[in-house]
């Protein structure tokens, strides 16, 4: 039977407030499917929906460490692997936002000509 949280977790991938968005960006960049992502984090794939629905760890380094530890402890994940995924995911999301901004700026400049 499908996990009812799975659909909700997928929907959260479009919202940067949730860990789902960071894990999705990380998994995409490394070409990981759910099984590979779960293996990377050291958990059963069945736990992924709940993991994805956690709020994204804070951006301050101390807060991020603390949040990552709490999530890893709760779900029995590899803390270091989760930290790497969160950091990479965040950078990738920022890059995408900036790319969007740059594209818009380029379009604006194009329009001014």
């Amino acid at each position, binding site marked *: 039977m499908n996990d*009812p*949280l799975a*659909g*909700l977790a997928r*929907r*959260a991938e479009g*919202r940067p*407030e*949730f*860990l789902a968005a960071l894990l999705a960006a990380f998994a995409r960049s490394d070409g990981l499917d759910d099984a590979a992502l779960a293996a990377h984090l050291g958990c059963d794939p069945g736990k992924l*929906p*709940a*993991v994805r*629905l*956690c*709020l*994204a*760890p*804070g951006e301050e380094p101390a807060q991020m460490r603390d*949040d990552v530890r*709490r*999530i890893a402890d*709760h779900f029995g994940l590899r803390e270091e692997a989760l930290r790497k995924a969160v950091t990479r995911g965040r950078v990738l999301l920022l890059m995408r936002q900036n790319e969007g901004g740059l594209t818009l700026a380029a379009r604006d400049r194009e329009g001014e000509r």
Partner: protein
Amino acid sequence: MTFPSPQEAADLLRRLLDGDPVAAPLICEAYLAPLLCSLRRKRPHADPHLVEQAVHDALLDFLARPDKYRPDKSALASFLRLAADGDLKNLLAGERRKKNRREDVELDSLARKDSRSDQPLLRLALQEETADMLDTVRQVAEESSPSQRVVLGLILDGVRATEPFAQALGVGDLPPEQQRRAVYREKDKINKRLKRRHLP
């Protein structure tokens, strides 16, 4: 499928507001199924996918901005039920708009027959104009009686003879002068309704 008790709800909310990142999935686990159940019961004819989407949006919006919820005003379950129902109404309205647009696109083929429609901007204007007209006709039809709706249909078909109108209004057996008056009266009512909505 029951919502958490007030004590459980208060504990979960406290953890969320304290910044515990794990509180969000716990709230989802506790509220998702009862919310889906409640909204399906309330709107049994709504598309199940839209119901699910509305519940998902309500939950994620709340988790992202829990400060929008005022515990002194309502229980969390009521707040989420209301939010999900509001989201569902918006989604259903969006679906209706999409459906209307699809119908309008079909009518666009009629507009293409107009030579002006070779120009994209004019075609778009024609399409919008057609959509507005259709909307007006729909509104007038909704507030008309069944026989008036037939009269409306005849007007839109460009019928001018009195007889079809008289038959539709059930006055075909009256003397011609009385038929003419009855038809004029009904056509006038409908024309006025159309004009009130700026349809020429």
